[in-house]
């Protein structure tokens, strides 16, 4: 049993992800089933906001700014900057699928789909 555990634990999973180009993200996306929006600009910046909290667009206070990059083909990395405090919070999602109208993102605690708005 212990050996089995060690053998299993010693195996590495290969990266089988897709190759995503940054240009595929440019634009505005809405998290499916929510009022949460994400924008991706060509300069590598963006905003996310949630109209459910009364934040109606990216210029409203409460809209969270971030910088974003893609690495390893499908790793979408965000570095969030607060309204008043720094950009220490980092989140990386895995893009599992992307098309002109949809994008699927995955993180440790779940998957969700974003629909292109613009």
């Amino acid at each position, binding site marked *: 049993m*212990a050996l089995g*555990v*060690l053998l*299993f*634990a*010693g*195996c*590495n*999973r290969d990266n089988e992800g897709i190759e995503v180009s940054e240009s595929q993200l440019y634009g505005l996306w809405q998290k499916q089933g929510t009022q*949460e929006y994400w924008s991706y600009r060509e300069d590598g910046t963006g905003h*996310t*906001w*949630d109209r*459910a*909290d*009364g*934040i109606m667009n990216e210029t409203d*206070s*409460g809209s*969270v700014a971030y910088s974003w990059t893609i690495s390893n083909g499908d790793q979408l990395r965000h570095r*969030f900057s*607060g*309204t*008043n*405090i*720094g950009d*220490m*919070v*980092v*989140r990386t999602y895995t893009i599992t699928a992307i098309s002109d109208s949809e994008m699927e993102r995955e*993180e*440790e*605690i*779940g998957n969700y789909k974003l629909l292109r708005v613009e």
Partner: protein
Amino acid sequence: MKKGWKIALISLGSLLGVLLLAVCIALYVVFNPRQLTKIVNRLAADYVMCETKFGEVDLTLFKTFPDAGLKVSDVYVINPMEGAPGGEVVAYVGNLTVGVDVKKFFKEGTVVVHQVLLDEVTANLYIDKDGNSNFDIFPKSEDEDTSSAPFSLDSLPEIDLRKVKISNLDASLLDLKDGLDATLNGVGLEVEGRLQEGIVDADIDFKGDVVSLQTTDSIGDTTMSAQAENLKVALNAKGNMEQVAGKLKLELNEGLFMTGGIQMVSDNLYESSSDLLTVELPFDANLKDMTVKLGDSRLKLDDYALNISGDVRLDPMWVDVAVETDGEWQAAELLEKLPKEFITWKKGMDLDAKVALRATAKGSLTDSTMPLISAQAQLADGRFYMPTAVPYKVNRINADLVANLDLGNGGVSDAVVKSLKAHTQGTDIKLSGSIDDLLGDMRIDAALKAALPLEDLVPILNDSSLREAGGDADVDLKARFRLSDLDPLDLNRLNADASIALSKLDVVYDSIHAVAPKLDVALRLPATEHKGKMADVKVVGPKLKLAMGNIDARIDNPDLDIGLNDVTREQVAAAFDVKIGDAEANIDSMMVSLEGLKLKGSARLDSTQQNIIRQYNPDVDIDLHGAVLYMPELPDAVRLSQLAVAYRPDICNIRSVEVKLAHSDFQLYGDVENVEGWIDHKKVLRGDLNFTSGYADVDQLLSLISGMGTDPDTLEQMRQEDNVPADANPFIVPKDVDLTLHTHIKRSVAFGNDLNDVAGAVTMRGGKAVLDQIGFVCKAATMQLTAVYESPRPDNLFVAIDFHLLDILIDELIDMIPTIDTLVPMLSAFQGNANFHLAAETYLNARYQPKMSTLLGAAAIAGNDLTVLDNNTIASIAKIMQFKSWKDKDNKIRIDSLDVELTCFRKVIEVYPFLLNIGKYQICASGMHSLDNQCGYHLELLKNPLMAKVGVDIKGDLSSPKISLGQVKYADYYRPDKQGVVEKQTLELKRLVKQALEAKVR
């Protein structure tokens, strides 16, 4: 004109001489009319330079008995002169009779004239513009100019004249040079007595049907016109050519007299049944000195008689005369008989009194001087009613007045009101005083005493704002001022002392209702206590009730000492020293109770301002012993036990304020600037205050200043737009303020937590509230909080915090901040002391609930010698990782150290890899979980007795996660890096705080 009369008299005398001469001649002729006529005509030619004509000259004995008379008929004096209204005839006498003493004639051969009788006399005297007259008909003496010599009866032949009678005289005098036009019609003049050797003893009776006199100015306009009808003058005179005594009586039945365009005899006077004028004038005249001593004379105009006595000198004119009314005159009736031009002031006025006058006039009457007149007037039982000025009747007027008049050039007159008493409605008025420079700019020194019901003032003041005035006023006023100070009113020049004792005061002025059982008001102009001010005003009383709009106040022992500047200015300024014993006021639903209030300073009222500070512009020291404030917004009263404030236009120095609110108490002192500008949103309210407290309910205190400076309507509108629940009342950072509170609070409660020994600076500036490294103790743990709070909208609040707790029991930490358990779910499994450091920012809704989409944060938890509570999850993990003997003997799981760092974004918390040392095992853990209870953690056994690597994944619902073997991720001897995310976030927050504190706000 005097010269004209003189010439006329000389001419008349000369004519008389001629006539007497004719009589003498007649006596030498044997009573032959023809001879007499020839003689008269011839002699007349010698004495008269103009043509004369005589009818028949005859002797008569009966008409002049016992004297012999020479009667001459149809005597004409003819002197043609261009423009003369009577043509060429200057005078005509129908019958001239001269009576001669027959005895003297026959015994002594002398002609002594006893009688001169003229009947049917007509005279047409005329003086042209050059002064030439038609009656200048007598030859002038070669030795002297008779025209300039004074006339004297001594110049006449020696006579013993006993009767002169002129009947049916019609005469006119037209003087173009001096503008005189006089006529006499139906005049009869009879003189009986003796004129002998300069001795006069005569009774002269003059009766004229119509006597008229008119003067004109240089352009021919009438300057004076007089007409007397039925004029009777009786003169009794005895004396010689130097001293004559006698009595003059004059009766004028009717007449008119106009001068200056004013008819002095009014219609009422003219139509009166009484004689227009009667005069009784005993006199003793010295013709040489031209002085007249008047006996007890009486002059009566209509029914108004004056008693006159004194001395008069004619040239130069000088008088020393006493005049008094004969009894009392009824003013109303007298006024009705004055020319209407003189009583225009009386229009709309009812005025009457019994008037008694007594006056003396003494002094010279020249071009520049007038006799000094001293007059006393007594008014009794008078009344006055003039609705436009005083809308009620004043009666029972009694006065004793004295006036001294100097009507000459530069003369100064004065008057004294010895006493004046009057009564109106329920008011008694007493007035006394003096008036200097009566006919110039009157200088009045008056004392007035009045006891009046205040309601009597309402119609006088004619102020629509004064709606009701109840109570009584006992006024004692002394004033000195010039009349010119009243128009326009110049209160700065008035000198007055007034004391007004008000009782049962009940006044409604505009929206102010004042009630006081008793108030003593003292007024002093100019101010003596408040130097430089116009007036001192003192108000003292036992109680005063005021109602003003929504304010209803009761004041005990008010003591107001005010120095006012000119109240007629647009902006009234006052220096004041106000003391109030106790006071209570209800303002809307708020109630204030004051104790021992003192206000000392100055204020300037400017009603044009909206800003309440600028309306009063106070510069005042406020000292208050105690106050209680009840506000509906507060469940408990606010109690001030001490207040000392010095308010200046540029700075408000709060020297000391001690406040108790519910269980809170605090003392406040420091400076606040720009209160005035802040109210009208033009300046920032700046303040640097020290706040010390034994106990403070922070939530309650914050609610007191929440929204300060923001328009309530605007705030309410935002609440409605944001659909803020009524029970949610977030703290709104005061607007346009720059306030720093240096706090030191022993005990406090804030957001449900008991905080002790709170110390640090709280700053509100630029819409931000900043807590700069506030230290406090909570649950025996020392904490430090740095925070920035903003409230742009009630439902969109922002908070950024840096919260540092040292050596706190984890249980208490979770109890104090339940959110910690959400952020770090596994923390609840630990026991022991830890250090906790949280840096985060988020927007909040009106209930202070985070808007999770905006939440960003980082936290670090570090502890040593912790104990882990056993549970199923841990047991499952331990089982998979093949833990053996990892618990202590007491079955507790001990952890040497814990050092966790995590970040939070929205609902997802990411825990960075950290090490757990549990006995002989070392685990590295990392992962994330969401506030939706989803987790994805990875644990990896790094060190164990078997040296085997084992990875465990924990996924799914946090309450029952799926625990399974996972991929090994870490290399041997892996040591997770210290991320330092919290420190970095803290640095960012400190930068933000620094920016906020250094921000230049307007």
